[in-house]
């Protein structure tokens, strides 16, 4: 009964989405308040219907209702409850309902928190959001209905792929989806602005929290997926430049660009049509990501389930949405008049360069990801583009970006004094030079690592220089600096934290990709292997029994200079329901490196093992965590905090900003006195 209820709720949601997609749009065009007012209650109703469908599907999983085909194929009665939940979005049909639910959540959020938006803009944003929902609901109902029954119902389910039964992966898709779908909101805002023919600083300010939210969740989702691949797949790697990984990375790159260009649109009323274009393309790439993952067109190690027919549907949808938006852009963008003027050497100029590098980097990843598809279509030749391609292109393109990241925030708006900026960065040059010398002395190379670490040092020092300047560190008494630091807007804090996080992330990436050590051998109990200055002794090997698997487990004693560091217990599991083995790597993390042990096949009484020493890998996860924290801090900025008093004044006049500036000036005057 619940399955039918869920199915019915989805159909109702579709009908409501069509109404929400059409009526407010016409209302906004004709300036009809009653028609525009349809949008808000419709968005709320939408959320209720989709939530009901989603809850019904969840319920079917929790009670293991195997008469529902989707549950029978992806769940099992003996599975832990948490993985019954995660199985809902661990398969294609369920993940689509989940995607639609997130769309509805965002629609609800715009309806609830967007009360201060101009009526016509809000109506249009919600209508476009609903039109996207219509596409996905049609897709779900027509090609991937999760509520189909199975008759007769099987006695038990086929279980979820054991690789997916993992806490890291239980949260990876939800975060990624929140990021992907969040870009639909910026897309809707962009299209609504094009219809209105008006983009002003207020628009940029309204879009910013949504961009931040999806950027933050996308960052967290990508990092979690990478972390999962690192410890669960047992290859010791964290990023493979696989098409599916690239599919999530490309929208991230454009969202990063959008985050920066929207600042120029907000502060200087410039780069407006460019910002709109980025918002459209970022969502286009997240749709493309879905298409690539779901169609199976690109062979990838991550394609769990695929079906070309569904791919065609998404491709058609993609062409319709992106083509429509770009046509609208071509028609309306020339009407958007540019505002503030600026010199090439200025904060705006630096942000333009930032955008240029991010977009060119994204294009490179795009070409590398889609080239095999194009070549196959035209010549029938099958090729793969592997990590070396991306290392010799994308990675080098990011070098100028990272160098710029230290300098950009030191530049003044409109026109910057370059020699002055270089003078302020003297200490960053010194730090980079010291790191070069130290790295060569300690590790002796390779030179890519030397360059990489010195860039990270340059960036981190540059960030600190900017922050120190902001709080006038050592120029005023320390107590006053602290007070100044507390008074800095959260958005500026977010920038400082994020840029520092990038420095940490780069350090981790450089260390992990240059200094990995790996030994593959056969060991029996009592054998000792030395890797990266640590001695690994195999103590014992035996069988253990888990809740829904059996496993072979080995005990390793890890010592350094005779002192016990850790005991590692890698496993090789076997899941009987799916007759599938998995590798559980054992990892000991110090602040500076990971010790990583993988168990292979048995060789007589001994076993094949692979032992890694992965320097600086913990910094990658640390850096990603700092980026996520930065996005949260920036989101709490009072400019876009929900219910902030600024909202009332914003509607009235741009006087709020004047008042804020006046307050700031008063503060400055006080601190000078």
């Amino acid at each position: 009964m619940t399955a039918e209820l869920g199915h019915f709720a989805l159909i109702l949601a579709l009908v409501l989405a069509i109404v929400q997609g059409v009526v407010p749009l016409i209302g906004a065009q004709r300036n009809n308040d009653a028609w525009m007012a349809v949008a808000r209650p419709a968005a709320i109703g939408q959320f209720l219907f989709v939530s009901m469908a989603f809850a019904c599907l969840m319920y079917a999983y929790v009670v293991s209702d195997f008469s529902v085909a989707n549950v029978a194929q992806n769940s099992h009665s003996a599975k832990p409850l948490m993985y019954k939940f995660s199985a809902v979005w661990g398969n294609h049909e369920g993940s689509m309902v989940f995607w639609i639910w997130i769309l509805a959540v965002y629609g609800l959020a715009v309806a609830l928190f967007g009360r201060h938006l101009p009526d016509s803009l809000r109506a249009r944003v919600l209508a476009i959001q609903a039109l996207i929902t219509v596409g996905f609901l049609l897709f779900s109902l027509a090609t991937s209905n999760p509520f189909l029954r199975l008759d007769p119902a099987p006695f038990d389910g086929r279980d979820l792929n054991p690789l997916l039964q993992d806490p890291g992966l239980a949260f990876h898709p939800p975060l990624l989806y929140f990021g992907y779908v969040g870009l639909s909101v910026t897309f809707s805002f962009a299209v609504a602005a094009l219809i209105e023919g008006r983009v002003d600083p207020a628009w940029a300010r309204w879009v910013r929290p949504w961009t931040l939210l999806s950027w933050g969740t996308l960052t967290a989702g990508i990092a979690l997926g990478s972390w999962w691949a690192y410890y669960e797949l047992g290859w010791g790697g964290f990023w493979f430049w696989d098409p599916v990984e690239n599919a999530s990375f490309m929208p991230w790159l454009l969202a990063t660009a959008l985050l920066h260009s929207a600042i120029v649109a907000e502060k200087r009323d410039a780069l407006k049509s460019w910002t709109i274009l980025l918002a459209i393309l970022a969502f286009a790439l997240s749709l493309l990501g879905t298409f690539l993952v779901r169609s199976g067109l690109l062979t990838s190690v991550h394609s769990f389930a695929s079906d070309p027919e569904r791919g065609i549907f998404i491709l058609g949808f993609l062409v319709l949405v992106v083509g429509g938006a770009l046509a609208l852009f071509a028609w309306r963008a020339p009407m958007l008049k540019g505002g503030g003027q600026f010199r090439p050497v200025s904060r705006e100029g630096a942000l333009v360069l930032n955008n240029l590098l991010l977009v060119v980097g994204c294009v490179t990843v795009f070409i590398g990801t889609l080239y095999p598809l194009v070549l196959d279509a035209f010549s029938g030749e099958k090729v793969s583009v592997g990590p070396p391609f991306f290392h010799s292109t994308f990675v080098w393109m990011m070098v100028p970006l990272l160098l710029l990241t230290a300098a950009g925030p030191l530049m003044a708006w409109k026109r910057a004094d370059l020699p002055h900026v270089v003078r302020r960065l003297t200490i960053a040059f010194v730090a980079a030079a010291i790191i070069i010398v130290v790295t060569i002395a300690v590790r002796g190379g390779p030179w890519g690592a030397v360059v990489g670490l010195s860039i990270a040092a340059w960036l981190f020092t540059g960030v600190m220089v900017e922050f120190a300047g902001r709080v006038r560190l050592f120029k005023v008494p320390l107590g006053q600096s602290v007070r100044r630091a507390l008074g800095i807007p959260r958005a500026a804090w977010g920038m400082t934290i994020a840029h520092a996080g990038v420095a940490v992330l780069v350090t981790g990436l450089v260390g992990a990709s240059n200094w990995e050590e790996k030994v593959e051998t056969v060991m029996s109990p009592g054998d000792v292997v030395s890797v990266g200055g640590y001695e690994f002794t195999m103590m014992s090997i035996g069988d253990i029994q888990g809740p829904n698997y059996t496993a072979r487990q080995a005990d390793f004693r890890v010592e350094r200079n005779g002192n016990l560091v850790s005991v590692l217990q890698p496993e090789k599991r076997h899941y009987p329901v799916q007759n599938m083995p998995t590798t559980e790597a054992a990892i000991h993390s110090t602040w500076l490196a990971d010790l990583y042990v993988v168990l292979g096949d048995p060789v007589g009484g001994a076993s094949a093992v692979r032992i890694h020493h992965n320097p600086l890998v913990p910094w990658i996860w640390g850096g990603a965590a700092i980026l996520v924290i930065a996005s949260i801090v920036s989101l709490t900025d009072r400019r876009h905090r929900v219910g902030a008093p600024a909202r009332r004044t914003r509607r009235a006049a741009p006087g709020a900003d004047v008042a804020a500036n006046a307050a700031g000036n008063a503060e400055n005057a006080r601190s000078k006195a």
Partner: protein
Amino acid sequence: MTQTTHGRRGRGMKRKHKRLIFVGAGMAALGLAAVLVFSAFDDNLVYFFTPSDLEERTFAPEQRLRVGGLVEEGTVEKSADGLTVRFAVTDGAASLPVTYTGILPDLFREGQGVVAEGFLKGNLFQADGVLAKHDENYMPAEVAEKLKANGQWQGGDEAATP
């Protein structure tokens, strides 16, 4: 949109000039990226073949290749060191011996689809990487096509079950 053009003219020149600088910088960046991308393509594209494709062609021993097919039943042999494995990859029409040293992926099994990456030395493929898919029912699409062409296809129409 009917603004007076007075005063806009003067700024218009500057604006055009500025725009030219940015367009120029953009072009330069794109050009540089294109050079990087195409030179990287020359060195880093890895072509994919099935064992029967390889029968008809020859390659330099330093040419990096990918070979895909099914692990032929009864061909997997482990050597005395416990790490080196020999097996044959077949597409139904031809079969190619492969050797690999290291721990194989979890889903490596006889009869399963694999992709091996490495170098063709004479008639032996020396792999330095072996991929098996996460999904137990996975078969490389190219191999499925080949098996269908040979009339040896055993699966249903849907290669990958949902």
